[in-house]
């Protein structure tokens, strides 16, 4: 034990210089990505349910006139994976709040808002990996890959992931000391949001009140845009509505999440 202060002492005992929000956010995000980098297979955990639906539910869908059922179903499953993964992510923060490593981050010079935004931005990476995986699985079947549309669709999902991830962290922050609350709320909300977005079944024939609720769901617009983009169809209004849906979730999520983190 001789190297404790082997590095030059004057710099080490100096105060940490002020850093920018983006530098802090980058540090938080790269830290968050390390476990994924070490164990890339961990992205599969959040994919179990979507893959079950893809394997066991998609074959039940009736063939539609204007294309294969798979072509219609896959964009929804991609959005579902993204919703599942991002909404689980608060559980990691819960674990770190219990173990004490979140407290350590709170005492570091990193800004409160970067602690939230960096974590939320990290959600983009597993989302990209999961989308790529789903497309690799379905492309050999009756699914036509339109890469340009997929890339724009994925950019939209990135916004959505950031928003849902932020909300999940906000939920974890308010559930401090009562972790059951996190899972109860997450599980209670996730299926209504999925069903109302028309991910599993189309809502065309749904009763008026159900369609009204569906219209209020930002994910509805994201999923509609994904379906067109993944099929290589470009309608400016649909794409714009999809981005608006993603942006609304992102803005609301970050607002709620940063407020929560500042109070921590």
């Amino acid at each position: 034990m001789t190297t404790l202060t082997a590095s030059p002492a004057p710099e080490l005992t100096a105060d940490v210089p002020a850093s920018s929000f983006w530098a802090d956010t980058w540090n938080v995000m790269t830290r968050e990505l390390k476990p994924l980098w070490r164990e890339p297979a961990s992205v599969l955990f959040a994919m179990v349910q979507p893959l079950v639906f893809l394997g066991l539910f998609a074959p039940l869908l009736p063939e539609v006139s204007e294309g294969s059922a798979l072509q219609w179903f896959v964009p929804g499953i991609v959005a579902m994976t993204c919703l599942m993964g991002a909404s689980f992510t608060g559980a990691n923060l819960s674990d770190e709040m219990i173990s004490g490593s979140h407290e350590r981050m709170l005492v570091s010079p990193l800004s409160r808002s970067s602690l939230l935004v960096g974590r939320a931005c990290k959600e983009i990476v597993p989302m990209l990996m999961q989308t790529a995986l789903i497309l690799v699985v379905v492309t050999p079947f009756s699914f036509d890959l339109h890469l340009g549309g997929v890339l724009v669709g994925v950019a939209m999902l990135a916004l959505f992931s950031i928003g849902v991830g932020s909300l999940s962290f906000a939920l974890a922050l308010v559930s401090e000391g009562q972790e059951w609350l996190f899972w109860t709320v997450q599980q209670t909300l996730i299926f209504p949001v999925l069903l109302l977005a028309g991910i599993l079944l189309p809502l065309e024939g749904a009763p008026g009140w159900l369609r009204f609720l569906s219209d209020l769901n930002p994910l509805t617009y994201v999923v509609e845009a994904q379906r067109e983009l993944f099929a290589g169809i470009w309608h400016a209004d649909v794409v714009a509505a999809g981005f608006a849906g993603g942006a609304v979730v992102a803005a609301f999520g970050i607002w709620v999440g940063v407020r929560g983190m500042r109070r921590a």
Partner: protein
Amino acid sequence: MTTQRPTGPVIVTRGLTRHFKVNKTHVEAVRGLDLTIDQGELVAFLGPNGAGKSTTLRMLTTLLAPTSGTASVAGHDVSDAPRAVRRAIGYVGQGNGASHQQRGRDELISQGRAHGLSRAAARERAAELVADLDLEAVADRKVASLSGGQRRRLDIAMGLVHLPRVLFLDEPSTGLDPQNRANLQALVQRLHGETGSTIVLTTHYLEEADALAERVVVIDHGRVIADDSASRLKTRLGDRVLLGFASATDAARAAERAARLPDATVSVTGEQVEVRAPGAHQAVAGLLADLHAARLTATGVEVSRPTLDDVFLDLTGRSLREANEQQSTTDAPTEGEAA
């Protein structure tokens, strides 16, 4: 050593107070704490569980807002300029600083990056600390798979990635075996000697406060009940000399003579005489000669320097062990829960 060592106060608290509401009960965890700690001091907060030590530390590290009163650390107010405080301090909490999902070395590097080190410097520093804290075998494993003692060493390494002006350690030795506890003490003392950092640690181990700190702040029920060097705290109480005699009569006669020692408190129990007096460990030789001259021959002699436990008992009427046990049986929250 070329480091400039600024002197003067680095931690100042005035009337620092923190109350909690726990299950509709009002808990006054810290009550009007006035403390001044100078740059370069090595201070231990000693007290039983729930005394308010950790709550105080959490206020000084900006984790908890004071209910009233003020605290400044490294010249910045903890409420008005928390980020400036965070840039000047390091903190090892009671929990695990490294996430259980991460690898230890990755967390050390992330911690370095968060504290302004370049990627290369952070990597180098992590390697130094891994070697220093004997973590080579486990640094590249997931933290969840480490033993309690290994995790604690990693926590301490995390706290030392940057060497701050003020380092706070909240019960650093909890969960360490005696070997690692001794290593930790050596590490803290070496760090203090080499960097001139101010180090504040909490402990409920008397031996630790005694072995480590130059200054011991004894806290009980949210108040400072003593604040001095360990040796002065003990000197004030005096040494204890236990003398045995062949008969109770001899013991009574010896007690009369022993009472002539300056500031002595003497009590007799059967054939035993207990003398408490400052510096008695030196005076005992003369006392024995005096007793011998009076034909009083002691059959047994036992001299003990006071421990901090004796000091705590003297200050509060309770032994520290009792106080810890009392605390764990009452419904009062532990500091961690209350926070």
